[in-house]
């Protein structure tokens, strides 16, 4: 939607008003989470503990062999840290991301469509997932533990976290909004999420043939972790810029898919005729 010209000078521009909304949701959800501080901390630490099992697994693997392809222990820890931080970031800002399919099916999109905000952002951001803070913190700490704390490198890692988070989020989102086109897609949506997560956890050389093609297209684990690792090890501004452009391309694509799907929204197509 284009609303470049602002009819009412007192009202903030569309972008500012949307950012304000996101900030309001964010404050609100965080305050709500803090009200149950015990449960908040439990969820955050539970997630971190859960993730640690994975480190032990790789530590054992790498105590026997030195390299898998180009990946040593530190490289595997890098993609694991980035995947975790990106996943956390995506679920902090887009807390509703894995509810979208259900929201569409049960006709709950109505409430968002009645509000004067972009439906896509409004749905995605109106909730936050508390345990996602654990994933984010875990990813950042693991990165520093393995690669040390150099401000430049840390900043680069944070940049990757933001854009890989956006990319990861919009792939999961695309899996969810297939519901507009295919009806009940709970299984497919869950599968997409599983694929995205598990493809980002193994050294790139594990993937061959069709799957290799897949990780640079439909399930772009390549752009989420493998390319960032390459840029991290051999930095160039051009490569970083290109990566960000590709990430934004995916974001734009999923947004278009959503707008297209919205035309087919049935506001409660739970009703399935039975013969």
């Amino acid at each position, binding site marked *: *939607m284009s*609303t470049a010209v602002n009819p009412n000078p007192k*009202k*903030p521009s569309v972008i500012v*008003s949307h950012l*304000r*909304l996101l900030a*309001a*949701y964010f404050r*609100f959800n965080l305050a*709500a989470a803090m009200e149950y501080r015990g449960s908040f901390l439990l969820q955050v630490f539970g997630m971190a503990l859960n993730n640690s099992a994975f480190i032990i697994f790789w530590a054992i693997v790498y105590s026997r062999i030195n390299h898998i392809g180009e990946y040593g222990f530190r490289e595997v820890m890098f993609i694991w840290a980035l995947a975790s931080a990106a996943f956390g970031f995506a679920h902090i800002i887009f807390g509703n991301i894995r509810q979208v399919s259900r929201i569409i099916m049960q*006709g709950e*999109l*109505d*409430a968002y*469509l*009645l*509000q*004067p*905000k*972009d439906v896509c952002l*409004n749905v995605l951001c109106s909730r936050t997932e508390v345990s996602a803070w654990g994933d984010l913190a875990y990813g950042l700490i693991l990165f520093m533990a393995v690669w040390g704390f150099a401000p430049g490198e840390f900043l680069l890692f944070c940049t990757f976290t933001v854009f890989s988070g956006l990319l990861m989020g919009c792939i999961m989102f695309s899996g969810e909004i297939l519901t507009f086109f295919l*009806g009940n897609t709970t299984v497919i949506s869950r599968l997409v999420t599983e694929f995205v997560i598990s493809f980002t956890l193994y050294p790139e050389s594990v993937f061959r043939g069709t799957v290799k093609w897949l990780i640079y297209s439909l399930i772009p684990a390549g752009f989420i972790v493998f390319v960032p690792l390459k840029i991290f090890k051999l930095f160039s501004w051009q490569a970083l810029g290109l990566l960000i452009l590709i990430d934004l391309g995916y974001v734009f694509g999923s947004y278009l898919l959503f707008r297209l799907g*919205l*035309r*087919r*929204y*049935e*506001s409660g*197509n739970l*009703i*399935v*005729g*039975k*013969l």
Partner: protein
Amino acid sequence: MAFEKRPGDRNGEIFMPIIEVAGLTKQFRTKVKETGLKGSFRSLIMPEYLTVKAVENIGFQVEQGEILAFMGPNGAGKSTTIKMLTGILYPTAGKIQVLGLNPTRNRRQLAFRIGTVFGQKSQLWFHLPPQDSFRLLAGIYEIPDREFRMRVDYLVDLFDIWDLMRIPVRKLSLGQRVRCEIAASLLHKPEVIFLDEPTIGLDIVVKQKIRDLILLMNREERTTIFLTSHDVGDIEQLCRRAIIINHGAVVLNESVKNLKYNYLNYKIIAVKYSRPVSIQIPGIVKLKEKEYETAAISGESMEYAAKIAVDTKKQNLQHVVNQLMGLGEVLDITISDQPLEEIITAIYTAAPEMNANVTES
């Protein structure tokens, strides 16, 4: 542009259409699934679709400041129509303008200027108290802080919801929730309000309270109100004009005065006596009567119940009730309207040419 703004003149009053609808149609395609595994498999490979015509070629206008009742039995297409007017659903065909805006193309602009309440679907955050929901809504509708506080004070007072503001919505009763929902929909001072069955499932006292509030809203701020209902009482008490739809098509679009005179003239009286009586009042229609035994404290006894229809065009209701009271000891008496389904049947039989029109489409 299909519509022109043309102020008109009706009974000497200037009117301005605020909602204009023409040829509006909505079809749903639902997947038909046969039972069993084989059926599931077949529907996956070669899905069969069934087209449901929820709304078919509807046209009407609503004037500024009007309260319009959009009536029809369950499944008539009322909710579907409201969803298209508010930008939730894309129409299959037809034109809509609300406040001069196209609800699907200018959805966000329109949302600032309308309010919507669905009796069966909550728009408040379920786990939050209304007070917090209101605050979030103020952010969404970009209401400045001071204005917001004044508005909340005003609405909370008007709707008498002081004590409900801090209770999570999921813990409120239906009537309490509906009051909060309506108050929430008024926060941003909408020019038009859409209410989809706001009184459904409410008991009589609460229903009356909601109706009073709707009237008040209309009077205080000259808000245009588009109301759907399948409760005849809603039209009688609230509206000057009613549109009746059935099977997705408009059956009648008429002033409530005419409607009342022509079709709402029957009242149904259900009366119960402590012992059998014989009701012989000229001009009434006896629909049902029954004698039955009850186990009273003083042994077995017979009670008697009857249901009668009174044509208020020919009979004075008060007079009939008085006569009924005189027949014996009355245990219980209720007066109600004819169900909407029967009124629609009456409309069909009274206007055969219109009937033919509807079935042909």
